[in-house]
């Protein structure tokens, strides 16, 4: 367990001292959300309607940016092989890396989202539920994403491929994330089931995804 915590702390320290990764993801998120109203015109009613969807889709794209680097840097400098021979099982390693990715990407993006909602004229009552749905949904993005990152570790054009493999798998998170926001702003009772399913997807990927990621890593470390 202490190895797990130590590994998460190491990744957080690396992300913090290297800078870059967090800032680039946040900047990308900001730019994508800014480009959209420029593309479709500043119709405030339309923007209000599409704001939850835009914020969620842009968040997925921004999270994908840093996903490809999850295991890559450690493979390049050889620390992945050292970690694999250590006391922590590979599934624990994958879970620690996913958790660190969530803390350095999912969490900041989810925190920025309500702020970007201002740009899209998001309804006032949607801010709280937007943040809640993103906090509940983004762990699935990091943990499922770890599977993709592990699978494309030695692939050519890994980054492009990763987006192509992962985005279809993010569909349930996206649908229920937006559904929860829509239901809450309409004051409908459908909010609770949507939100619970969103949590269920995240919890299931928390448990299952590290196993798949570990299987993929094991094949490539031999």
């Amino acid at each position, binding site marked *: 367990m202490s190895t797990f915590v130590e590994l998460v702390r190491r990744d957080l320290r690396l992300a913090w001292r290297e800078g870059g990764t967090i800032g680039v993801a946040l900047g990308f998120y900001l730019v994508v959300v800014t480009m959209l109203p420029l593309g479709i015109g500043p119709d405030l009613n339309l923007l209000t309607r599409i704001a939850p969807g835009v914020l969620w889709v842009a968040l997925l794209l921004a999270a994908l940016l840093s996903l490809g680097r999850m295991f890559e840097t450690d493979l390049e400098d050889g620390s992945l092989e050292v970690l694999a021979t250590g006391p922590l099982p590979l599934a624990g390693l994958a879970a620690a890396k996913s958790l660190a990715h969530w803390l350095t990407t999912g969490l900041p993006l989810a925190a920025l989202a309500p702020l970007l909602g201002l740009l899209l004229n998001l309804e006032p009552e949607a801010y709280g539920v937007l943040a809640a749905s993103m906090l509940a949904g983004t762990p699935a993005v990091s943990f499922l994403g770890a*599977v993709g990152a592990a*699978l*494309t570790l*030695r*692939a*050519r*054009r*890994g980054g492009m*491929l990763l987006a*192509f*493999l992962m*985005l*279809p*798998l993010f*569909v*349930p998170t996206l*649908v*229920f994330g937006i*559904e929860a926001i*829509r239901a809450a702003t309409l004051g409908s009772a*459908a909010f609770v089931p*949507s939100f619970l*399913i969103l949590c269920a*997807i995240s919890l299931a990927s928390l448990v*299952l995804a590290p196993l*798949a990621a570990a*299987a*993929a890593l094991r*094949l*490539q470390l031999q």
Partner: protein
Amino acid sequence: MQTFTQRLANPTRFMALSGQLLPWIGGLACALIAMGLVMAFTAPLDYQQGHAAKIMFVHVPSAWLSMAGYALIAASSFGLLVFRHPLADVSAKAAAPIGATFTLLCLVTGMLWGKPMWGAYWVWDPRLTSVLILFFLYLGLIALRASIEDEALAAKLTAILAIVGIVMLPVIKFSVEWNSLHQPASVMRLGAPTIHPSLLWPLLVMAAGMTALFAALHLKAMRNEILRRRVKALRAVEVEAAGGLASQAAE
């Protein structure tokens, strides 16, 4: 005592058996599809949809095969990862492009049917949308395999992706259909719950024929893949031998 699948683990035995079976399965596919098409064209016209409803006789079997194809890939992937069956990867690799083609056929026929019925080629009907995502999953399998140099590694990683995909597929389908509950109910369902026997029989014959076609294409693709691997192995031996000769000549 060997089971049937264990006996097939010998590629030579598989080649002999599949070589004998292939003409029969191919012939069966041709006969059934020809019969099904005749039955489909002589079936009574739908009083609402007219001739457009005939597209169902191609659409429904391809929808069924798109899902069966993915299930076949997942089962083969399981066979590769768990039992390390030598033909499991050959089967998974061969099924991916065929399954993707049937999925595309399902999408295209669905769109052609949708234009006169719904007034648009694509209305985000939940069923068609989940088939589209299935198509992306197929393409993902093909793309991942193509982008990894080492074939044995590519086979196992693609197998993991296929199994992740089959776990996620029901969740994706559920989420896409959940989404549609909240849209205006403009969607007509192609597969009506009650279907008249005069339409059911041609549909069943077409489904059997296209399944036989899938099986024939799959067997043929597996044979091609085995031959390709043999050629590759022979080349490697030849290159090695030539290298040995060259080093002898240099001495």
